[in-house]
């Protein structure tokens, strides 16, 4: 087992890692930037070292300083948390070369999953369905028509070099296809310099559902069920829950066993998450794999009773998987609301000093945070200040529990997403579980239109 772990992160996740280490009897080293001198991860770690100025490229992403700190203080492992260096294959490689255990998968596994196109091809080869589409750009009209027919409408045309919605067109039928393709190609040429576009199956009202997996270094792997993360804005998750309302035990068993099979085939170890788009007929399409612990991991911890960070450390230390698939039982329903320091309407970040703070508690409530009264939220990092997590015997109970916890959450001095969460929790479609990734966008549009009419 490790004697000392360097936690290469900040905020709530750094604190979360430190508390698992404390329970395992492992010493911790915190690293911090000049902006984080008064942060809680600095206070609760056994040792703390300033590694750079506020800008993360010069501090939390400064690989030489992180490695030097680990060497100077004799840390035998580094936990990267999420974000920052957690999905840097290069950093994992430097750790391997420095004989410091990177708590995560091998650098090759990170590199494979980091290449999204290659990851889809590989995982498809090992039995996971991916969105049907043209593998490459379509060059002729004939090719485009044949591809769209084969996939089935609606389809989406996307720029090969694309991003940000440019060069993107949803096509409902054959009649619209060629005109849309021309416009998309012209847009793509304008925006990216290359007109090439490809065609993919379009899913209306797609859900985002992901599977948590855990694998040791001896080829054993299990899944910990799913999390539904369809409440998003601009591709950023806001509310996560487990189980998903559309999941059934047999469907979970089916997808779960295919996921486990696929990660065994690629020889993956440590924890990870496979993200899927799901259509209204419960078809799962593999999108990508995150090779680290996720922000929303507590949701799974609440329904399984596992400590994912602890298990992650044990696996990295070379222990065998501490659980069998048959040990994994799902109990009740868990929800997580991300409390960000931002304007709930405009989503503009709202850094500053927290002037009043009361964290809600009571049965079934968990809060993962590194904030406190008088804490100054620095403007340099992401806006997540707390994760409020609740557990209930049913989804309804969990929602009511979350609502009262949000009501009792006192946070003054900065704007936060608390009012937005309370609004979502009262939305009839959300209560029914009728959610999809554009849910928030559409409901806000509807509200804006209603306000205009009124």
């Amino acid at each position, binding site marked *: 087992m490790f004697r000392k772990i360097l936690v290469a992160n900040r905020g709530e996740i750094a604190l979360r890692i430190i508390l698992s280490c404390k329970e395992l009897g492992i010493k911790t080293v915190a690293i911090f930037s000049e902006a984080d001198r008064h942060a809680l991860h600095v206070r609760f770690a056994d040792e703390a070292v300033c590694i750079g100025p506020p800008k993360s490229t010069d501090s939390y992403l400064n690989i030489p*300083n992180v490695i*030097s700190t680990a060497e100077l203080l004799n840390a035998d492992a580094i936990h990267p948390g999420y974000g920052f260096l957690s999905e840097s294959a290069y950093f994992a490689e430097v750790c391997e070369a420095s004989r410091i255990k990177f708590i995560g998968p091998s650098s090759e596994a990170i590199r494979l999953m980091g290449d999204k196109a290659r990851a889809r091809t590989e995982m498809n080869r090992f039995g996971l369905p991916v969105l049907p589409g043209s593998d490459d750009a379509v060059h002729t009209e004939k090719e485009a028509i044949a591809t769209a027919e084969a996939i089935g409408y609606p389809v989406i045309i996307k720029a090969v070099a694309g991003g940000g919605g440019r060069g993107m067109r949803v096509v409902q039928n054959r009649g619209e296809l060629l005109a849309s393709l021309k416009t998309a190609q012209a847009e793509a040429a304008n925006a990216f310099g290359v007109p090439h576009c490809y065609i993919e199956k379009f899913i209306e009202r797609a859900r985002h559902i992901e599977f948590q997996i855990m694998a040791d270094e001896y080829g054993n792997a299990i899944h910990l069920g799913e999390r539904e993360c369809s409440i998003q804005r601009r591709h950023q998750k806001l509310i996560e829950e487990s189980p998903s309302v559309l999941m059934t035990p047999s469907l979970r068993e089916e997808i779960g066993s295919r996921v486990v099979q696929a990660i065994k085939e690629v020889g993956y170890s440590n924890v990870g998450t496979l993200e899927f788009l799901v259509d209204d007929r419960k078809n799962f399409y593999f999108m990508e794999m995150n090779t680290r612990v996720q922000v929303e991991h507590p949701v799974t911890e609440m329904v399984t009773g596992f400590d994912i960070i602890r298990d992650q450390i044990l696996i990295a230390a070379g222990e065998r998987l501490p659980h069998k698939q048959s040990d994994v039982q799902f109990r009740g329903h868990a929800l997580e609301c991300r409390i960000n320091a931002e304007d709930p309407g405009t989503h503009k970040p709202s850094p500053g000093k927290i002037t009043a703070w009361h964290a809600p508690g009571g049965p079934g409530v968990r809060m993962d945070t590194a904030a406190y009264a008088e804490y100054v939220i620095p403007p340099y990092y992401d806006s997540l200040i707390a994760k409020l997590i609740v557990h209930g015997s049913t989804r309804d109970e969990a929602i009511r529990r979350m609502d009262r916890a949000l009501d009792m959450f006192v946070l003054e001095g900065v704007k936060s997403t608390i009012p937005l969460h309370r609004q979502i929790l009262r939305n009839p479609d959300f209560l029914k579980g009728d959610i999809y990734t554009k849910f928030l966008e559409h409901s806000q549009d509807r509200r804006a239109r209603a306000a205009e009419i009124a």
Partner: protein
Amino acid sequence: MNLGNYATVPDYPNSEGSAPASAILLGLVSMNLKELKEIIDLVTSKESIEELELEKSGVRLRIRRASNHTASAAVEPAAITSAVPAAALPQAQPEMPEQKGEELYHIKSPIVGTFYKAPSPNSEAFVSVGDFVEKGSVVCIIEAMKLMNEIESDVAGEIISILVENGQPVEYGERLFAIRPR
């Protein structure tokens, strides 16, 4: 009597062993009350005095200002000592005192690593207290990831103190040297 000539600390001698002339000797043979008042006014106009010693027959006067640098209080440059025997000179001190209220510049560590004052265990230190350095002079080495990184002074001036021990781990932004800029 012209105190102005004595109000600044003379240059610190570079050779080891010799005592720094950090105490100011006033070669007073006799002193009247008016002169004494002038001295006290000069000192108290800037700082509150902490200690005053007066000896009548040999005219010995000692005034000490309040200072938070207790370790160097004996060589506080503001201490005005008037004594006939030169034996009253203080012993050589490893550190030059910081004058209270004076803005010293600090060379800080730009990286995380181990501090070394010399290029190898058997060689001379890059700099010692009292040395004058130019902007760009190498002042120490910080070892990080088995690489020896030479750290240069970013100002020209006099090394007043070395704030870390040889072989000590240092973090980003840690103060290494105090320099009186020139």
